[in-house]
């Protein structure tokens, strides 16, 4: 038997995957060949030296797994999982509609003729207005007219 094949059969013998017929043939080979015996002994030593490590997962692993499974199995989580694709689709549609509306409004409210005749860019700035109101309120409360930004 060639060395490569012999090695393969020895590995299969070790893992218990040789057929009875192959096993008989291997045993004949082992009784006839010193090389076969050395190879088998080498494989056995190798496996004997390497045993399962004593390293273990953290002691609270089981409770963490159980907690995760409890969360995963909650009925509301199951509902969310089922609804996820539907919700994603709805979000996409809403976004697309929003973008469409935004473009539509801009096109209708800022027609080229109106902008050209006005000569200025009309921009409604509610945040700016709110900030002004807030500044006025702070000034009124503090009782002087100092710039609040300098305080």
């Amino acid at each position, binding site marked *: 038997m060639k060395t*490569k094949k012999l*090695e*393969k059969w020895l*590995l*299969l013998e070790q*893992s*218990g*995957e*040789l*057929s009875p017929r192959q096993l008989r043939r291997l045993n004949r080979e082992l009784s006839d060949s010193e090389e076969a015996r050395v190879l088998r*002994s*080498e*494989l056995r*030593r*190798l*496996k*004997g*030296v*390497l*045993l*399962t*490590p*004593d*390293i*273990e*997962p*953290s002691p609270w*692993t*089981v409770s*963490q*797994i*159980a907690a*995760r*499974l409890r969360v*995963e199995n909650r009925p509301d989580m199951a509902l969310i999982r089922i609804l996820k694709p539907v919700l994603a689709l709805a979000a996409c549609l809403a976004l697309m509609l929003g973008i469409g509306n935004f473009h539509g409004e801009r096109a209708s409210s800022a027609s080229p003729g109106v902008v050209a005749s006005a000569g200025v860019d009309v921009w409604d700035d509610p945040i700016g207005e709110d900030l002004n109101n807030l500044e006025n309120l702070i000034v009124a409360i503090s009782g002087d007219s100092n710039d609040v930004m300098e305080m």
Partner: protein
Amino acid sequence: MKTARENNPMDQEDDAELLAAYRAGDGESLGKLVEKYKRPLFGFILRFSEGREEADEIFQEVWVRAIKNMNRYHHKNLLSWLFRIAHNLMIDRMRRSKPMLSLDTPMNTEGSPLGEQLAAVCLGPDGEAGGRELGLRIEAAAAQLPAEQREVFWLRMQADLSFKEIAKIQKCSINTALARMQYAVSKLRKELAGEYRELQKAGI
């Protein structure tokens, strides 16, 4: 052509019963199952992850996925199935471009190389006298192997899976799994030539 573990129907029955009991609400069954397989599974995961924290995460994820997909478990070898889930999870992580640690890379917490830490604890009683050095060298030599060969080597030598089971995990033929193992063993033989023969003579 079955391994000793596959041939033990009691084990498989126990596992199926424990899984069923957990499903029926018996929380303790999960603990028994985790306890039963934690060492080989965690040892394997630790070899292919970036330290204990990540290994813990993967270990938990393996069990969560296993329990969630229990209906796919058909009373066969539970450990082999767990290894398959772990293999897939680790492949996913690698694809997300997390570089795998070499066994020579020092770990953050303990400071000594992972290879040394594992070798220090994975030697059997036979090896304690003269085999620690050999264990370290095997770890170091195995760390140089390509990931697929390394995986076959540890799944066979430590987890005691059959080549049929390993082939399933790696989604390849039994012959390919065998060839990977042969390559790994021949590389180790080359690397450890002198020392290994000495230990053989000494009967270690």
